[in-house]
Structure formats: C-alpha cells, structure tokens
C-alpha cells in the first residue's frame, strides 16, 4: 500500500486544489444558497470539471473517461470538501458511473458512460427510503409487467434527484424487507408517468430529493445487471460513494480545523492571543492528531479499492466510521472555539458543520459502519 502520493497524484492534487479554490470556493456555495438557485450547482462548473477530466475519473478510456481510479477520486473529493464545492460529482461521476460500469450491459455502458464523462448527463441513485441507511430495508418493489417491470415505492435523500436526467432506482424483485438479497437496479426516466420528484431543503444547502414511484412502467432493458443481483452491484457503488464521502469529510474536517486554528491565532481576549491558552492548544493538538490518523484511514480505503482487495469494503467502512466521528468533532470544536462568531452565518465554520452533518449520515453513519466492521470480523 503506497502511503506517499505518486508524482501524477501530486499533480492532480495541485490541479484540483487550484481549480476548486478558483471556481467553486465557499463563496460560490453561499451564492447558490442565497439566490435559491433552482439547480443547486453551477452547470458551468460541471462542464469545467468534465474538461478537467474529473467526471470521467472512474470511467474507462474507451468510454471517454481517464480511469484514474479511486485514489484520484479521493484527492478530488478532498479538495471539494475543503471548498464545500457543490457539483454532481458524487451522484453522477461516482455512484452512477460505478453502477453502469460494474453492472451495466455493453449497450448501457456505451450509451451512458461517455455522457457522464462528457458532463452532459446528470444521474441520481435512488436507494434510501427514510429512517437509517440500510439497503436491505429497501421496500420499493419491482414486479414483472409486460416485457419489463412496474415500480412502486418512495425514495428519500436522492442526491441531485430533482435535476437528474436519469434515476438509478433500487427496488425489490424478491424477498422480504430486511432481506439483503432480492434487489435489482433500474434506469428510470424522471419524466415517466407515475414519477413525482420534490427537492428537499437541506442543512448543507446541497441537493437532495424525495421521489415517489406510483405504478411506473419500465422496459426490460432498463434493468442494470441481472434480476435480483442488484445488491452485489450496490456494494461496489456504495463502497465507491462511501470512500468519496470519507475523502470529502477529510477535506471539510481539516479545513474547518484550519479555519479554527487561524482564528485562535488572531483573536485576542484578556490582552492575549487566545491560541496561547493551553485549554485551546490541547484541543487543537488533539484534533490535529485525530485528523492525521484519518488521513491514513482514507488513504488505506482508497488504495484497497484500487488494489481490488477482497476486504476493501471493510477498509472503506473503517474510514467512513472514523471520519464520521472526527469530522464531526472538528466541526463542533470549530464552532465552540470560534466563540460567538462561530454562531454567525458570516463565518464559514457553520457551513462546514452543516455539510459534515449531512455527509457523515449519508450511506451509513459511524455506528452503521462499526457494525459492518464487526460483521466482517465475524462478530
């Protein structure tokens, strides 16, 4: 496992850092929020990201991508986390691209992967249905109908759902709710009869939607992979998504921390820079140490995915569990150590806290992933 970034990776990291700092810094998220932007991200930014090759990072060259892999994905996600950059990177370039690449037919791959890489199609994964994340609890059904299927159910927390050109819907073709098997994945057009979509208002000012599927008819070729085998594809999709979220949390958590350290070096009370106070120094040093441990956990997860290790999912769960805890700590300590201004909208630390809150819950919080690790260790 390479713990040092390669030259190519350092170049990518530098490019991504400069790109998001210039094109999608925190002020851009504020603008999207304050203008109540209907899309929730800048389509121009997404085009620029496609030109940078970020949208094709998990897509093979034959389909217009650059296939740089998961470590590269993580570097981009981390920079986006530092800048709170809103884009369909997670929904489309990671989740959808992985679903179609790993589970899709040759036709599906040829049709959709170039569009994802080129930035012309937005896709959204419709998986969670409310309550806590747990794919086995999927209750949405897909029953055979004509030469295809009829879908019924309701989805929540569908990232970029209200602007997607296509949904990838997880539905149950067999088994009971709670059964990890029996899921299938379907490509669904949001304009189909019976689909209703409603954007949800999120703490992090980012995109998510509720979707209702009411007797939605799809053709047989809408199925991704085989009937009932969607769970296996989902594992790969979710591993990629969780690893990206872990890297994003590393970026957001470390940036919230950096803002905090800069603040306590400037703020004066009792005639002193407050960073002189040991009570604050020790909390900062603790956070620094924890964030460095996180850096190792994220690097291990991304490397395990690139290496195709059989227990890569465990590495990913370890990272997501650890980052959920530490990024959260960085954000709450960040607000507290900023004092009164930490409560204001003007300071960015609150925006980081809100994004971290949403991202730590997405696709399994710390407790969910601790349990995944326990099961992988046969407990």
């Amino acid at each position, binding site marked *: *496992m390479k*713990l*040092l970034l390669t030259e190519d990776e350092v170049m990518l990291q530098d490019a991504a850092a400069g790109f998001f700092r210039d094109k999608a810094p925190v002020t851009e998220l504020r603008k999207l929020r304050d203008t109540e932007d209907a899309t929730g991200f800048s389509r121009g930014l997404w085009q620029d990201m496609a030109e940078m090759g970020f949208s094709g990072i998990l897509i093979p060259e034959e389909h217009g991508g650059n296939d740089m892999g998961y470590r590269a994905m993580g570097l981009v996600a981390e920079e986006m986390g530092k800048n709170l950059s809103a884009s369909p990177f997670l929904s489309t370039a990671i989740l959808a691209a992985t679903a179609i690449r790993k589970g899709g037919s040759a036709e599906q791959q040829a049709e959709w992967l170039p569009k994802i890489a080129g930035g012309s199609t937005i896709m959204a994964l419709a998986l969670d249905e409310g309550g806590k994340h747990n794919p086995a609890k999927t209750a949405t059904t897909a029953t055979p109908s004509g030469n295809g299927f009829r879908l019924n159910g309701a989805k929540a927390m569908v990232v970029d759902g209200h602007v997607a050109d296509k949904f990838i819907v997880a539905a149950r073709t067999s088994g009971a709710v709670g059964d990890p098997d029996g899921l299938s994945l379907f490509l669904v057009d949001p304009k189909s009869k019976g689909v209703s979509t409603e954007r949800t208002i999120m703490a992090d000012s980012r995109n998510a939607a509720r979707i209702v599927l009411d007797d939605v008819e799809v053709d047989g070729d809408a199925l991704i992979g085989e009937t009932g085998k969607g769970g296996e594809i989902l594992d790969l999709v979710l591993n990629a998504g969780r690893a990206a979220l872990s890297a994003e949390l590393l970026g957001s958590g470390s940036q919230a921390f950096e803002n905090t*350290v800069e603040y*306590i*070096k400037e703020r004066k009370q009792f005639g*002193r*820079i407050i*960073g*002189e*106070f*040991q009570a*604050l*120094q*020790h909390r*900062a*040093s*603790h956070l*620094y*140490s*924890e964030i*460095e*441990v*996180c*850096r*190792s*956990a994220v*690097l*291990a997860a991304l490397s395990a995915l690139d290496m195709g290790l059989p227990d890569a999912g465990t590495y990913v769960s*370890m990272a997501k*569990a*650890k980052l959920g805890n530490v990024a959260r700590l960085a954000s709450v300590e960040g607000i507290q150590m900023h004092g009164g201004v930490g409560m204001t909208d003007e300071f960015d630390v609150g925006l980081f806290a809100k994004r971290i809150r949403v991202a730590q819950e997405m696709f399994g919080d710390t*407790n969910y992933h*601790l*349990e995944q*690790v*326990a099961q992988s*260790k046969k*407990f």
Partner: protein
Amino acid sequence: MEAELREFERDADAWFAENTPGEPDFMLPLTFMEVGTDQQFEFLREWQNKVYSAGYLGAAWPKEYGGGGLTQKHQDIATRAMKKYRGPIMLNAIGINWTGPLILDIGSEAHKQKYIKGILSAEDIWCQGFSEPENGSDLGNAQLRAVRDGDEYVLNGSKIWTTHGHYAKYMILLARTDLDAPSKYAGLSFILTPMTVPGIETVKIKKLTGEHGFTQTFFTDTRIPADGLMGREGEGWKIAMQTLEYERSARGGQAGGYVLTEVDPLEILQLASKAKRDGQSVLADPVVRDKLMDFVIDAQAMALNGKRARISPLVRDCPQALPLMSKLTHTEFALRINEFAISLMGTKGGYYVDEPNAIDEGYWHRSYLNAFSATIGGGTSQIQRNIIGEHALSLPKTR
C-alpha cells in the same frame, strides 16, 4: 541485494524460531521500565546478548564500533522476525534506542570506541538522568550541579524516575554547569556519567503495580571524568532535546528490536469473545461491539500513521509533527484499550496479579497501570500537546 536480503530473512526467521525462549516460570516485565528483580534482569540481559551475538541487534550500526555494518532494511527484517516469534523485549532500551544513536551522531571517536559495543551486548546498561524531584515537565529548570575541577566534574543533587538506576553502569546526565547563564537552558550540559564511582546512591521506588524498575538517584560530591561531556558546556539542553527525539522516535538510528510489549487489539477481541453477561456473550452488546470496533479501526489507522511518520518527504516541512502525534495517540490508545479490557471482565476486573481466579494472571490490570508510564514518561501527553500546538500548528507559546 534483494537475494541477499531474502537469505538474511530466512536465516533470521530460522534463528528466532530456534532460539526464542519460552515463558520463564517467573513474571517478565511488560516493558523495559518494569525490570524489578535480578531474575528478570539476568534473563533479559542474556537474551539481548544472544540476539546481538547472532547479528540481529545493531545490524545497521557501524562494524568498527561493534555493529553489524549492514543496512536498516536488515535490522527491520530481524526486528520483524523477533516480533513474529514474540521474543522477550530488549533490556538496554536507553542504550540501544537513544544513547547509542546520540553517540553515533554527535559523540567523539573515543566515545564511540568506548561505549557502542557494550550497549549492544547489554554488558553496559544505561540509564537517563533528566527528571528531578522538583523539575519534571519543567526539565529546562534542572538543578543538579556539576562543577568543573581539573579533569573532573563534581556532582551534587538528585535525579528521579531513573529506569534501570540500580543496574546501570552509565548515565546520560543533564546537569547545571553555569549558574550565571543568560537563560535557564543555557546553563545546562550533557555528560556521559559512570554510575560505579563513589558518591552515588540509588534508592528503588515501588510502583503502583507493586513492581520496581526505577530509582531516585542521589549524587553527593561525586567525582566523574570530564571527558564524558558531550558537545560543549552550555549545549546540554539542545542535546537533551535531540535525545528526546530518539526516545519519541522522531529521529532514526535506533539499534532495533523492541522494548515495550504493545497491546494487540486482536488479544482484546479474544478476551471479549470469552466474556459473558447474563449468560450471553458481551459481543451481543452493541455498545461493546462499537467500542471494540473503534479500537480495531484506530489500531489499524495508527499503524499506517506510524509508517507515514517514517516517510521523509511527508515530514520534511515539520519533522516533529507526525512522530509527536504518533507518541501521543499510541500511548493514550494503550491506556484506553487496557482500561476497556478490564471493564470487559466485569467484577473479575478487580482481581489482581497472584489472585488465582484472575483472568490471564492479572495481566490486563498490570498492563493498564503500567500504560501510564508512557503517557507521563518522555514528556507527558499534556507536554506533547503543547509541543504539537507550538510547532505543528504554530500557535503562540503559552506564557
């Protein structure tokens, strides 16, 4: 080179498989800091000597002073084999881990000729005279007096927490040579001191575990040769800080092996799998499961972090930062995991060493209490956090 390393690996593996001693019929110390009986001392001294004689300690140290003249890769291979067969710890920790590297880096030719071989063979045990009863974390305020008199220094004062104090032949001593220096730091000097001369008294200190391992050391008009001075007078603080960098693994050059028994989370998993609550495995308790997995995750991430701390490009900007946080996280982790192990045992967690019904002969409770020596020794966790704050985060110095 690769083929030669592989052969070395095969040989080392075979040697440790053949020569690693089994558990003796007395309790071995968990770390070099709890060597309290002659029986323990002789057993560990013989083991270190055997490892050295076979070429598996100091393999990367220069041949002309008694080392193996090979590379760090060789030594790392030997240390891995030692770990694999769970060999006992190396005894002469202060010699092999910090005095030896210090002498090799900045000592005189005469120092190297005189001391290095005895450090490796465990013939010459070393101790460290830094902390004083009145000056612990405030090490820069050390008051033990050294007055130059011809070719000698005359010592008066006292040192404390002297690990191996009653066995040591030599001490690395931080002493005050100048009372009129412009700062408290500038008055200090660093002296290699014999412990076998008249005027030195060592008094054993009993630990809260019931074990021994360190002493208070008293110096009364003690005359020592002045040629033990390292660097120049007044450079003691700088050299002491360099010594602490070896101790905290922030600098390389150690002879190899290990001097502490680290808790492996897998042992805790074994312990947990045996523990019951109301007839059920404690592993059915989600709180216990979550905590256990937290330890497993931290252990793995910290191990990778330790590796990152040794990759030079990663530590170029701030050489101390990763090693310092490694010391802090590892030692605090050891405390937490040992405490958790005790909690798993329920009421039996109160049983102590020598109680026949104690789980694992009371190992966990002893290990827990001894774990404090690492969160206090070598700079307390609070001092580590000060240093990280000031050096890694560039926060203003606390007044």
